[in-house]
């Protein structure tokens, strides 16, 4: 009798131990939340396309065949930080999400950043622009994949100042993103001997820019810097054309422009704009192959924007890290450390690395919008003007104020 009790106790302990170690080493469940603006001014550059990109990454990773279970859910933060953080908390607490991807809108992205740090999740940001994510507000749980305001300022901004655009007027979206982009661009302009002659802030999601554009016009600045994005940028550029701003001799600096924005503006008006991206669908055979598959699954047949491509690549790298770990530890810091320790290499962004502050380094490309006569297809918009190597495009580690670097 006694023996029986002891043996059953032993058996019970052994079973508990076995299942515990099983959970540690063999847990192959991953849940990913794609948090984005699903219906507003950033929905076309991220939104449903980003969710699709996440699904394609899960399919292409090949993990399902190796016994992994990957689940992807999506949510709409409506460009409101409070909604974004509430959703993120709910995802971690109730839905047991491991990773949040995309999150355009710097205001929401920074708010969600603190939630993910608190919950020890993984944050692969593709959509947001603010360089603060890997600088002053960096977190050990965050990887900022695609681009940032520092890169935009040091490519497009710098090129325009060097080409003689030494007086600037800013048209700035009045929230974290606009402020960061204006700040980073201003430092590049002044460092290169240029001058800021004025600026005006507009609310996020503005439909009428005429009053702001009149101020920009009367400032006589050589360059009107558009520190805004998505629908705000397309509205500014269309209306600037109406007010004869470019014909009057001033130049528009589209500091951040996406493929879908060019489509919305139309080549007639957009031609000749210089801007920078880290991905374009028509770069090489690999990007074309991916984009063809992607566009076939999009309702409006659009190829991926750089944000959507970043969601795909970022997740592919994340899956590689999980596979290398042999299971999902459900520990954000551990997974992000693994991601940082592996060099990045994927078909869309090429070779690169993730710096200790969470910044992914890869090449940035200077593009010019084609003339209507040069465009051969419905999405054939860009002409490659130059390539900036990753180490010159992004914040040098020596200049980063990230606390993670002071260890």
């Amino acid at each position, binding site marked *: 009798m006694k023996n029986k009790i002891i043996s059953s106790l032993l058996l019970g302990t052994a079973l508990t131990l076995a299942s515990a170690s099983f959970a540690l080493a063999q847990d192959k469940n991953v849940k990913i939340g794609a948090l984005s603006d699903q219906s507003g*001014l950033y929905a076309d550059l991220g*939104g449903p396309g980003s969710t699709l990109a996440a699904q394609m990454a899960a399919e292409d990773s090949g993990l399902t065949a190796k016994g992994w279970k990957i689940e992807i859910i999506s949510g709409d933060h409506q460009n409101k930080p409070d909604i974004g953080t509430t959703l993120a908390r709910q995802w971690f607490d109730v839905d047991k999400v491991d990773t949040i991807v995309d999150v355009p809108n710097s205001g929401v992205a920074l708010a969600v950043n603190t939630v993910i740090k608190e919950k020890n999740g993984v944050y692969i940001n593709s959509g947001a622009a603010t360089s603060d994510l890997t600088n002053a507000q960096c977190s050990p749980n965050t990887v900022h994949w695609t681009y940032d305001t520092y890169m935009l300022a040091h490519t497009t901004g710098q090129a325009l100042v060097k080409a003689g655009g030494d007086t600037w007027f800013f048209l700035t979206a009045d929230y974290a993103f606009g402020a960061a982009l204006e700040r980073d661009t201003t430092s590049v302009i002044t460092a290169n001997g240029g001058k800021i002659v004025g600026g005006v802030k507009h609310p996020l999601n503005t*439909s009428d820019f*005429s009053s702001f554009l009149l101020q920009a016009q*009367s400032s006589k600045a050589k360059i009107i810097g558009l520190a805004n994005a*998505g629908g705000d940028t397309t509205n500014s550029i*269309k209306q600037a054309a*109406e007010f*004869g701003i470019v014909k009057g001799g001033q130049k528009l600096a589209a500091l951040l422009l996406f493929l879908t924005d060019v489509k919305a503006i*139309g080549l007639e008006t957009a031609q000749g704009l210089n801007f920078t991206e880290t991905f374009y669908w028509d770069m090489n055979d690999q990007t074309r192959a991916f984009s063809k598959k992607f566009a076939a699954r999009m309702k409006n047949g659009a190829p991926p924007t750089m944000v959507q491509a970043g969601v795909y690549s970022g997740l592919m790298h994340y899956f590689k890290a999980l596979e290398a770990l042999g299971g999902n530890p459900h520990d954000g810091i551990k997974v992000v450390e693994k991601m940082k320790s592996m060099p990045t290499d994927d078909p869309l962004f090429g070779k690169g690395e993730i710096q200790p502050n969470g910044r992914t380094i890869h090449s940035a490309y200077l593009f010019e919008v084609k003339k209507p006569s040069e465009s051969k297809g419905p999405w054939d918009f860009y002409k490659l003007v130059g390539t900036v190597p990753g180490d010159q495009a992004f914040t040098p580690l020596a200049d980063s104020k990230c606390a993670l670097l002071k260890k």
Partner: protein
Amino acid sequence: MQALYAQLLVGLINGSFYALLSLGLAVIFGMLNIINFAHGAVYMMGAFCAYFLLHLMGIGYWPALIIAPIVVGIFGMILERTMLQWLAGLDHLYGLLLTFGLALIIQGVFQNYFGSSGLPYAIPDELKGGMNLGFMFLPIYRGWVVIFSLVVCIATWYLIEKTRLGANLRAATENPKLVRAFGETVTLLKCVARGWNGLFSRRIASGPDTARKAPEAPAALDWLSFRICDCRW
């Protein structure tokens, strides 16, 4: 001072846009007693109609200014016949809920297939360019909007307040039973009303139905205002 003049003019231009935008809404509410939450969605359909005419059939701005209201007007008639007519005489809230639901559906369907970014629609050559007024650069297209808005607003006011058609229309709103008693007059008015591009046709032409709501009027008005505004976005 220069800035003040410029901002005043911008205000006038925007006022014109808003007048066109809200004219349909005001007329529908005033004359038909419907709180039309689908106003904006139907307005958008007018824009899409013009966009399709140009990009699929190569029909430009000026013909579209005539064709698109008719197409959207027909859509409005279908809405009225199939849905809104059953709500005649019920509380305002039912119409509000129905049109709100319709707005969400229409918006969702279009967003699903065309995304949320604007689609480009070039300003017609005749209205391109602008003039320098000294204190600001006035795009000709915006000047045209101001004129068009004034004309449409005055014409609508005149039609409703000063013509026999308008008088009957108002009478029909006030006391449909009495207007029904003058059946002959109503029939006579048919042609005139139809000439106005279906603007108020359903309401007048269908004498016995006068008490029912006529969303095609909103649609046509929406559309007119929309067509003017859509080059802007």
